[in-house]
């Protein structure tokens, strides 16, 4: 497991160095390309503000009212048997439905439990390792006019379930 941590540490700096050297070798105007790409980052960050505000306020209300704790107490025993913290259940549920909503929940979990806590890490890996099945399905099939989606939804949701289980297993093994 130490190897995974080591790769995590080295991977990004080495990748950045490699891309810069390769870009220079290919005579790309590196700095100008960087600035052009970076502008898109600002656009993305600003455009998700409304999504996050909406979701974080809803979650805050739900939690501050005590409804979250109440609900947790019901599902905790069942989840505890398989070693899953109850706090992660809402995130696992919403992840396939809405990416931005899940992002709000992830940051909420990281904020309230700490980024280096088990729950904080599990939320981070869960958010990073799965994708929004419903979004992909609606956008991709909607754009090209597919009406009968066959097994696509079933396959996608089953894949999500496997992804969630794998995230829990890996995080439990590493930390």
């Amino acid at each position, binding site marked *: 497991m130490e190897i995974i941590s080591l790769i995590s540490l080295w991977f990004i700096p080495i990748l950045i160095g490699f891309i810069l050297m390769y870009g220079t070798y290919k005579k790309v105007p590196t700095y100008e390309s960087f600035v052009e790409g*970076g502008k898109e980052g600002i656009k993305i960050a600003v455009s998700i*503000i409304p999504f996050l505000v909406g979701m974080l306020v809803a979650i*805050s209300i739900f939690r501050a009212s005590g409804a979250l704790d109440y609900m947790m107490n019901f599902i905790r025993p069942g989840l505890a048997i398989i070693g899953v913290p109850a706090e992660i259940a809402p995130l696992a549920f919403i992840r396939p439905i809405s990416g931005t909503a899940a992002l709000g929940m992830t940051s909420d979990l990281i904020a309230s439990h700490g980024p280096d806590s088990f729950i904080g890490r599990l939320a*981070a890996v869960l958010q990073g*390792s799965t994708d929004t099945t419903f979004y992909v*399905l609606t956008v991709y099939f909607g754009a090209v006019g*597919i009406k009968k989606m066959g097994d696509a939804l079933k396959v996608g949701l089953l*894949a*999500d379930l496997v992804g969630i289980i794998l995230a829990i297993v890996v995080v439990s093994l590493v930390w």
Partner: protein
Amino acid sequence: MVNIIWVLLTVIGILFAMVNGTMEEVNEAIFKGAAEAVTLCIGLISVLVFWLGIMRIAEDAGLLTKLSLLFRPIVKIIFPEVPNDHPAMGYILSNMMANLFGLGNAATPLGIKAMEELKELNGGKTEASRSMVTFLAVNTSSITLIPTTVIAIRMNYNAASPTDIVGPTLVATCFAAIASILIDRWFYYRRSRKRKG
């Protein structure tokens, strides 16, 4: 679906506060939640700008295209029905590469284009073909090298080492991708058995 969940979270919370006598906390939570969301987005800007900038260099240098060529044999196994020189193959590969580098915005148009080509390959029918279902399965468990946003959030909340989740995320996502391809295969064989029987 999101609409229902969003409304339920809020309304149940407010109703619960009425019964529970936690109205004061709820009032505070409304404004705190909104403020926190904005702070978070501002914090995300740094990482998003840097990473998308670096990735633009990779794209301009032709690294994404190079990687696509490298992965062609693997993709051929996953999509046996797509001919090698068909444009669909190119779009599928570039979509996967964009996802790999966390370029969600670049991945979406490429993915739609890939779907278009797959539809044409299927005779323009409005029914999802085998390859389309596979492509979707691969996309929903998209392998990501750098989960940029998650790293940014962890940085925001002062994680000791914000990037230490990269390795575990990669391991989890790789296995998930393999699993989703197997699930897709299993459904396909089930379908074709039914048709024969």
